[in-house]
């Protein structure tokens, strides 16, 4: 008789997550700043890549992180732990979940390397020639999309969001995030991003 039974052994913990080491002396959940940073970087990825939100779920499976990021709702809840969000969920983000999101961010950033470099080079040229962003189609497209994502999802009543009330400020933020994403594409990008999230959290 053929019996269908689940595998007896527990599936091994996702291996990829262990490549990130947790620095000593950090609290056992991600800080407000970490939650904000991760969500903003993912927001920038969405602005770069129209299918970014789907790609996050797909890459979570690809990296074997679907144990940690359990589907669409879970991903949404985790990103909504960003305190700047309009519907911010006051829920903690565990270190494991933080690591998973960092790995996904860097994985997607690496895929977008060419585009990120092009946009930053474009920004540099515009800056050198003192031209406005409109002169670079792809860049102004990214900035416009980032601004609209940001305005649609962040709580405009929060003082830290009010600081980004103008197009100029949001453009600055978008470029800053683009530069950070570039540094995420490096071979040690994930480790560097992960460690940077704890700046100021250790004594």
């Amino acid at each position, binding site marked *: 008789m053929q019996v269908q039974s689940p595998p007896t052994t527990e599936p091994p913990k996702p291996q990829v997550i262990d490549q990130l080491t947790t620095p000593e002396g950090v609290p056992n959940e991600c800080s407000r700043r970490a939650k904000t940073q991760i969500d903003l970087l993912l927001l920038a990825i969405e602005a770069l890549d129209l299918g970014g939100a789907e790609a996050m779920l797909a890459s979570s499976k690809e990296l074997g992180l679907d144990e940690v990021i359990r589907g669409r709702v879970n991903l949404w809840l985790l990103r909504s732990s960003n305190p700047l969000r309009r519907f911010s969920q006051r829920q903690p983000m565990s270190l494991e979940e933080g690591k998973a999101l960092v790995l996904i961010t860097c994985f997607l950033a690496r895929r977008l390397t060419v585009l990120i470099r092009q946009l*930053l080079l474009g920004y*540099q040229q515009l800056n050198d020639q003192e031209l406005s962003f409109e002169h670079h189609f792809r860049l102004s497209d990214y900035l416009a999309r980032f601004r609209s994502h940001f305005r649609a999802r962040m709580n405009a009543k929060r003082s830290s969001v009010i*600081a980004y009330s103008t197009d100029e400020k949001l453009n600055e933020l978008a470029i800053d995030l683009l*530069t950070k994403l*570039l540094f995420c594409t490096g*071979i040690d990008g994930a480790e*560097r991003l992960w460690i940077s999230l704890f*700046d100021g959290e*250790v004594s």
Partner: protein
Amino acid sequence: MTIQRQYQLPNCSLILDGLSIDPTPGSEEIMSLLVNAECRISGLERSLNGGYNFFSALVRAVSQYSQEVLSGFAHPQVAEDEPLLVHINPGEGPYHHLVIQPEVADLGGASDGRAIDIKLSAVQLFDLSEAVDQFFDDSQTLPELAPALAPLPRRFVRADQPLGDRLLPAALGVGSLVAATMAIGLLPVPKLKEPNTALTGADRPAEVIASTPDANNTEPAAPENIAAVNASSPLWEDSPRIDDQAQLESLQTELQNKLELNAEPAGTFTQPASYQVAVNEAGEVLGYKFNDDIAAKNVDKTPLPRLARDNADKAELETQAIAQYEATFDTDGVTVTPWQDGTQVATKTEDADATQSETAIDSADQPKTPAESGSKNSLAADTTSATFSSEPPTTLTQFTEVEALNSQLKDILVENREQPRVGADPASYRVRISQDGTITGYQPIDPEAAEAIEETPLPKLVESTSEDVSSVDYRVVFTERGVVEVSPWWGWSYYE
């Protein structure tokens, strides 16, 4: 055996020439001695060449600065007590500046003695950082150089502030860095000396001030507002002094409460650190100074930089009347006393001595006999209209009197509160009441209580007494259920 290693990226390549000096099998491929390090950056006609000192300083600066790009917080790029050989500063727009002292590297041509300043775009900087990371990942080349990635300790980062509030100081910091970079370029070869760690107390610690040995001579190195809140300001010399006794006392209380509210948890300071603090008539902290290394080192742990910065760009800073206090942070918390500088300070010297010699109220829990405390603090009462740091000058000893005052105090508090305080956490205070039923002082037991003070009737009930009246201290708790609890500070048994 000579070995060459190359790490190539589109805009940057690192070429290392070196030797293997370990002949044991398996180790002969490891480059353990660096002869020359060459760094080629696209757009730069000649390449940078230097020895081990250059290369180790370069990889450290690049690695630290990459973390700075990711987190936005300035990372120290050189270990304490080491000379600053290679440094990266943020520039304008997409640019960054790689600054190298001429004695460790050259660009091929004759050196004119100035620091080499290379403008890197974000993409060039990243390629340099990536080349360095590829080198770090290569265990066969100079294995002793490791990235040492670690989060920035809290003392280098300002306390929690919303993102928006950080923008202004960051912008000022960036501006000052640019200014410092340009200043370095103009300076003759700086004589290398140990970075002045005493100066790291300023706002962006290890960044500009500690890292540019000669920046002491160049004004732009420190952002303007920091100069204004710190020692060099005309604030200290030119400002008129407040000499109204009552005002000085209330300002002292206000400063004490403000510092306690913002201070780090107890135990942060292992050694006492003292600061001279100037506040204006509105009680805002305008500036602070420190005179020793302990204070300099720990200034970022105090709320002073933050409080002072909020008021740093106020107009006509020097024309406002100020009062000066000494704030001492130690293991028990913070103590504020009038500043003794020989100029007009309203409190009499012996008063200050009395309060200074006394420990803070929290540690004064041990009952002392009234006679002993009375003689020791005979003058303390006039300095403490709203708060106090010692026992009452004279106290009552009769159980019945203490009991009567107890119920009197409770009645006063219940009658004068606007509405019962319900729902919040209990708030406890030490309250002093004189024999005739006047509340002469109060002191929150903890920061939570200090925060809740406006929800209690205490602030408006305090009246100052100048004579030595007998007083009793009580513990007053406003509980979460809206009940006011009053009991003698040293317990009932003390009076039986």
